[in-house]
């Protein structure tokens, strides 16, 4: 059923009792041409674009839990394309363009809200770095504005501008950045893929990968063996585990990142703001809660929960930026498992096993990349060659020396 004002009117007349489920619950077939492992945002987007843009049928998405139960439902919903490196920026800008048309494209309300993403700077050196990044963005056709302290104060009068240690000197603003309702992204892609014949297999966990003479032939799952032509891994924080089933060792560590939401408040912060002196970012959800987060905890973890010292650290950074936050009560905190790569950039590539593809290493920036990641991964799987916007995301770049390190931290996953 196409969602529209007419379908809404029609269903309201029958008391909303005749809505059909947004996607089916099929039993696994014996064989699929393409199996995608991971029913998160990226996996579902890949299935959607494989079906829609490449006209492929006979595709399955395996999800061990329910779709949207992983990081696509745990992030802080921010979208932006304010990167600097040439290998990154065209990719993230393509993602932004896909976000801008996403709801019309998959006929689902994802609440895409281009409310602006503002990065604050606190020193002259940081402002110079922002000017450089803003220029790099504009060269790539992305919008960027360098604001002085006065312009930032006009937008957000309640920040701590004259802090003795970290005065706010200005900021880099991307007006086209913003937020998206993250669950709706998973649901919209799932529905769009399902409508085009993709089987979404929830509660179906990958337990093994079978290869014959260097080629993937089938997967073992808790619902039995399923044959496949191509196997596309898209398992975020659990990428190392699923890749190990095919004998691969990845340049990835899994770390926990926490996020938080406050009690509901009246309209307070209408954009997304990041603190430049510590790692803190905040926006306000449509329900009124402040959604905020900070750094990863810093140690390897698959626990999907963090420790209290990082909770304290994030809230300290928040109060340093916005003193009035000290009066706000935090409502919930949660954690997600991040696939932290060795250079802070993702991998979308073929592997040494024939028919096995890898999409991983998104660190804690995967949500904004969801549409372009799915788009480029689908292209790679369908055509066996990298998409032009994802040519830098090679698995062998650590061997060849073509790392894509926005922060310049080197091979230290917990510092990216």
């Amino acid at each position: 059923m196409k969602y529209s004002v007419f379908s809404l009117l029609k269903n309201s007349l029958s008391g909303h009792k005749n809505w059909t489920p947004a996607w089916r619950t099929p039993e696994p077939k014996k064989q699929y041409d393409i199996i995608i492992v991971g029913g998160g945002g990226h996996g579902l987007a890949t299935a959607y674009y494989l079906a829609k843009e490449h006209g492929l049928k006979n595709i399955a998405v395996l999800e061990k839990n329910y779709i949207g139960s992983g990081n696509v439902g745990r992030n802080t919903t921010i979208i932006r394309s304010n990167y600097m490196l040439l290998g990154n920026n065209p990719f993230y800008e393509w993602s932004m363009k896909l976000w801008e048309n996403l709801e019309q494209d998959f006929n689902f309300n994802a609440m895409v809200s281009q409310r602006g993403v503002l990065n604050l700077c606190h020193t002259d050196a940081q402002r110079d770095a922002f000017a450089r990044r803003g220029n790099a963005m504009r060269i790539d056709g992305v919008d960027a504005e360098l604001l002085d302290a006065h312009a930032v104060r006009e937008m957000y009068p309640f920040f701590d501008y004259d802090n003795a240690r970290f005065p706010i000197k200005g900021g880099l603003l991307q007006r086209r950045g913003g937020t998206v309702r993250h669950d709706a992204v998973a649901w919209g892609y799932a529905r769009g893929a399902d409508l085009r014949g993709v089987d979404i297999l929830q509660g179906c966990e990958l337990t093994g990968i079978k290869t014959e003479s260097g080629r993937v032939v089938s997967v073992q799952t808790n619902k039995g063996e399923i044959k496949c032509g191509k196997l596309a891994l898209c398992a975020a924080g659990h990428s190392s585990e699923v890749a190990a089933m095919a004998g691969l060792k990845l340049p990835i560590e899994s770390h926990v990142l926490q996020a938080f939401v406050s009690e509901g408040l009246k309209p307070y912060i209408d954009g997304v703001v990041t603190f430049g002196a510590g790692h803190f970012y905040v926006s306000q959800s449509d329900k009124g809660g402040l959604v905020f987060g900070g750094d990863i905890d810093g140690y390897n973890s698959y626990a999907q929960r963090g420790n209290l010292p990082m909770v304290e650290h994030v809230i300290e950074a928040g109060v340093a930026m916005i003193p009035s936050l000290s009066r706000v009560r935090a409502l919930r905190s949660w954690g997600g498992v991040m696939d932290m790569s060795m250079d802070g950039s993702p991998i979308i590539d073929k592997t040494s096993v024939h028919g096995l593809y890898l999409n991983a290493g998104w660190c804690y920036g995967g949500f904004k990349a969801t549409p372009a990641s799915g788009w480029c991964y689908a292209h790679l799987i369908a055509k066996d060659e990298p998409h032009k916007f994802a040519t830098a995301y090679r698995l062998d770049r650590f061997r060849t020396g073509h790392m894509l390190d926005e922060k310049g931290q080197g091979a230290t996953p917990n510092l990216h």
Partner: protein
Amino acid sequence: MLIPCPHCGSRPVEEFTFLGDAAPTRPETLEDPGWHAYVYERGNPRGAFDEFAHHSGGCRAWLVVSRDTKTHEVFGAVIARNYARKKKL
């Protein structure tokens, strides 16, 4: 998480800085083809895990902490040099 530092006793996690997996072995020569694996490839286990931790907010000793990455249960901590010696034997 509380970490039992061999010098300082049970100390909270915020006193420690983590460097990551203690399993990779540093190659002996420059020509060794194992450098790529040593620098970039990680086992990244879900479960028992040995990792380098610097007691940066305490005695500043380098330790190897044994921990479960699934539950955050800490099994113990030894001085990194002793861990390396034991690994060589």
